[in-house]
């Protein structure tokens, strides 16, 4: 069966049906407007549905929320949390930006790494953080991703990674660019050791992250509607003066063009990941 078919969320229709019925809710329960169908969703329901709307729209999610959604309860052990960026080029404004972003996001860097179990399958995980400078990759992100792949290679473990990124972090200049090569080298060693790497591309995965470890996985999945691409859409319009096709750089279009294995809605993500991990147990699940 094609991956795309069994990835379709069973409950999407039910959810869709239910949403047309009047919503019972307490007076004044906070709501969030869906940018896709423009309906107001009560926050309690939004959370119950893993931050997705009944129309299928997937809201952005914090890395720690994702980890608790995907990994078995209390199984996550964080690694490399002390690796964080300084301001190696003394780039104007970067130091203050980092301070602000750390306060606002509650994270020290734009990726969280560690070991965990997904459906009882041991694995290494990395989850990027969109609220930290849009998941941009500087030295610390590159170092953490590289370190988790090296750890996985040493301990014969598969890697499950969630990407979200605007690309390389320009405030670290060439050092950021080099992280694309560094992470790719670590992914290659992991791959050459016969180990499994699954990437789940979430909205948006672009630039230098797309052009390195996001596209280097054995199995590449993407969340519905996620923007996945290399160059930014605005830059492409400016450069080419052409209007963009519908669904341009959307996960669904990436699937049509053959660059991802399937669309993985959140509702079935954990089961799908654990099923894939199980089927690679000979190579990947030894830890």
């Amino acid at each position: 069966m094609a991956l795309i078919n069994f990835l379709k969320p069973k409950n999407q229709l039910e959810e869709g049906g239910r949403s047309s019925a009047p919503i019972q809710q307490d007076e004044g329960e906070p709501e969030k407007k869906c940018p896709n169908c423009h309906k107001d969703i009560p926050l309690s329901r939004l959370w119950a549905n893993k931050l997705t709307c009944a129309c299928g729209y997937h809201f952005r999610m914090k890395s720690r929320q994702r980890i608790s959604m995907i990994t078995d309860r209390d199984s996550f052990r964080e690694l490399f949390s002390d690796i964080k960026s300084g301001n190696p080029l003394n780039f104007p404004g970067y130091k203050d930006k980092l301070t602000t972003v750390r306060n606002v996001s509650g994270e020290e860097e734009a990726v969280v790494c560690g070991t965990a179990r997904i459906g009882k399958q041991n694995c290494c995980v990395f989850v990027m953080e969109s609220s930290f400078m849009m998941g941009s990759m500087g030295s610390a992100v590159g170092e953490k991703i590289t370190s988790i792949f090296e750890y996985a290679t040493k301990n014969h473990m598969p890697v499950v990674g969630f990407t979200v990124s605007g690309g390389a972090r320009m405030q670290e200049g060439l050092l950021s660019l080099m992280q694309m090569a560094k992470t790719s080298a670590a992914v290659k060693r992991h791959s050459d050791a016969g180990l499994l790497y699954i990437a789940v591309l979430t909205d948006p995965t672009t630039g230098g992250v797309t052009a390195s470890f996001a596209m280097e996985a054995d199995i590449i999945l993407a969340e519905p509607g996620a923007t996945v691409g290399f160059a930014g859409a605005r830059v492409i319009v400016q450069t080419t003066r052409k209007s963009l096709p519908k669904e341009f750089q959307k996960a669904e279009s990436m699937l049509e063009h053959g660059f991802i294995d399937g669309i993985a809605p959140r509702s079935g993500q954990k089961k799908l990941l654990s099923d894939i991990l199980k089927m690679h147990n000979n190579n990947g699940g030894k830890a």
Partner: protein
Amino acid sequence: MSNSAYDKVKLARDSSRPTGLDYINNIFKNFIEMHGDRRYADDHAIVGGIASLNGSPATVIAIEKGHTAKERNYRNFGAPHPEGYRKALRLMKQAEKFGRPIICFIDTSGAYCGIEAEERGQGQAIAENLMEMTTLCVPIISILIGEGGSGGALALAVADRVWMLQNSVYSVISPEGCASILWKDSTKAAEAAASLKLSAEDAKNLGVIERIISETDIGKKEFYERIKLLLADEVEALSSDPDLIGKRYDRFRRIGADAKAALE
């Protein structure tokens, strides 16, 4: 704010500078061009083939911008499509098969930003080159001869040695793009250029390149002759290294690794 970094960017972009084919034709003998990625098309922005370097066979790959308006159009201004990177990888794998060193000349403002380039997997093509180049078991030397624009340049620069011409630049983003994103003002490009640390000296100080090749106060013939000898010597030294791939890994592994010091 100093203008010198931005002056360097302008110099690196100057259409009168030697292009990739000038280096190939002046440094190598018997260049035989090979075309196509065997998957979609032949990209004119990347030129590749086999040639003789100081008497020994080598695979040579160059991003070509062209000199005249007609040439620059034909070469897409040195902005490769995915098929260009795939052609380059095909030729590099062939070099590995036949035990020849790989020499790359890089000169691009970046991988092409276009609808078709995206739909044919620009990101995937670059990613695959980065990944595969890390374990090719023949020496790789890459020289930045003009603009080294981001991932589109790096896709030919996962090498054992990376050298830069004195007036070339290497950057994660164009100064204009950086200024436009950070300060919503592309006229602040000069400021961005200075902040990005994109000159050859900066790249050397950051440990990203091994050598700066001077390009002033030297005749044309001597200029190419000297690069030829530098390449031949380096190829010879790298060829006898039993740990070529391990050292290539370490070369990139240490960049930006200082954040880890607290951990050990």
